[in-house]
């Protein structure tokens, strides 16, 4: 995992749920990650898929990813190239899914300092998100959790743990 990520921002509000990130109607009919990516944020922002660039960062309000446990709501964003998600807070299962899929996240109020199209820099070592209108700090992840993220997600982590592959 890169210790510093700079990316162009897509800004969203509070309580963005997994149904608008990845609609439930596709949960059992779409299994290919590339196809999942084509439906990313479909019911939230129809302009997203056509315009997102690899390395872009989502910056949002509170409770990002609430609702269903569906991991596709992380996979679709990871697959389309989202570099990180910064939100005021994350829904619990979404938070876990990000760690397990190795999609870097930071919980802080950066949404107050940035607009869509501007740039932010996330420094994971320093625990800061720098926006055009201020720097916001976030608490470090627990070392056990950081290790999963740094190993590239839960599957490589478990492989290492079990000594397979």
């Amino acid at each position: 995992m890169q210790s510093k990520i700079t990316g162009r921002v897509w800004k969203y509000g509070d309580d963005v749920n997994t149904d608008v990130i990845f609609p439930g109607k596709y949960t059992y009919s779409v299994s290919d990650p590339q196809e999942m990516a084509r439906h990313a944020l479909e019911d939230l922002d129809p302009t997203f898929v056509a315009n997102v660039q690899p390395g872009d960062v989502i910056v949002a309000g509170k409770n990002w990813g609430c609702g269903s446990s569906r991991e596709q709501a992380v996979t679709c964003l990871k697959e389309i190239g989202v570099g990180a998600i910064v939100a005021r807070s994350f829904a619990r299962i979404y938070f876990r899914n990000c760690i397990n899929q190795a999609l870097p996240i930071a919980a802080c109020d950066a949404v107050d300092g940035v607009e869509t199209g501007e740039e932010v820099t996330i420094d994971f070592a320093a625990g800061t998100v720098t926006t055009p209108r201020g720097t916001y700090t976030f608490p470090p992840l627990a070392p056990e959790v950081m290790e999963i993220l740094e190993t590239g997600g839960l599957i490589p982590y478990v492989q290492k743990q079990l000594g397979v592959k």
Partner: protein
Amino acid sequence: MGETFAEKLLARKAGLAGVVPGQIVVVQPDKLLTHDNTAAISKKFYQIGVERVANPRINVIVLDHVTPAADEKYATNHQVIRQFAAEQGIEAFYDVGEGICHQVLPEKGHAWPGALIVGSDSHTPTHGAFGAFAAGIGRTEAAAVMATGNIWLRVPHSFRIVIRGAMPPRVTPKDLALHIIGDLRADGADYRSVEFAGETVRDMSVAGRMVLTNMVAEMGGKNGVIEPDDKTRAWLQGRVTHEYEEIHADPDASYERVIEYNVSGLAPQVAKPHTVDNVVPVTETAGIPIDQALIGTCTNGRVEDLAAAAEILRGRHIAPGVRLLVLPASREVLLQAVEQGLVSDLVAAGATLLNPGCGPCLGAHQGCMAPGETTISTANRNFKGRMGAKEAFIYLASPATVAASALTGAITDPREV
């Protein structure tokens, strides 16, 4: 200082003398629940590079999301799951028609006081109604639990929600749950363990308690729990045949918040589109025309829910132009509803009876809406696009309110029919 339920249970499961909120523990779940997503999970499991699940006895698989299969793709998905269960020697496999995973799991004896249950479904906290610690997880970590038998959990802070007062007529645990979510908001209990207590909870049926713990997911909670009592033990008798040790919070446990509600003045509640915390008394939505009404789901598909609807609809007929869908939560519920005459009451009143399952709630199978349509549902989510068109509207309410609304064709206060 005493321990909360979550602290005591996670410390014991982790083999530690004590734990503190925020601490990461590695624990071995007693049960791992998966559903139609088991095919995707099994793919990730094999991707890890192991051949056999660590302990097939912890696996519980229930097909419920798209049952019976809607097309070849879903049929193949189910086939992969049947093969996986057979190959891995997973005995607790419940095929099409058994019901919704959160009803079948306890019915078949896989939930008990003091159990640690994880499930690849966000409504897994439902099983806290039996005194278990039950939390939702994602697909990859479900695969990792299959491979290793263990999982990391963060010890949560705890809320204690104390409910007092007697439920007024036609006011139900669903109305209480919606009221609490409207008050605490969708993230009010984010990552928290939520303990429900008080005389109202003690007086509640097991089915009613399951509504409260089910809806904990909609306030962001990690788990919800209700202290086991004689009602719990009676319900579990004959289902759970092994010994178990109940875990109770200490009276001097430390809570992040203690919140009290009194239900004696509570009116039926409705969550308006498009968030579950957009809650108002039914009187504020009365008269909004509906196209479809849905009674069922892991929140409100039990016998007492069907009985509440039948009580309103018996000998009457739903309004012209309204579609009323009824999905019993399980085969056991369906059989009881048949025996009690509830199915004939509802079908005679114009209801369409669907097989036990949960497809319509997430727009995955049956009961989808076209643009501009409105459904009033007993489900737990009303997010935009959840039941089909994103230009459709979902209102959430109790079975009584949904039945009353089906009767008149518009959202209706169940105390007035």
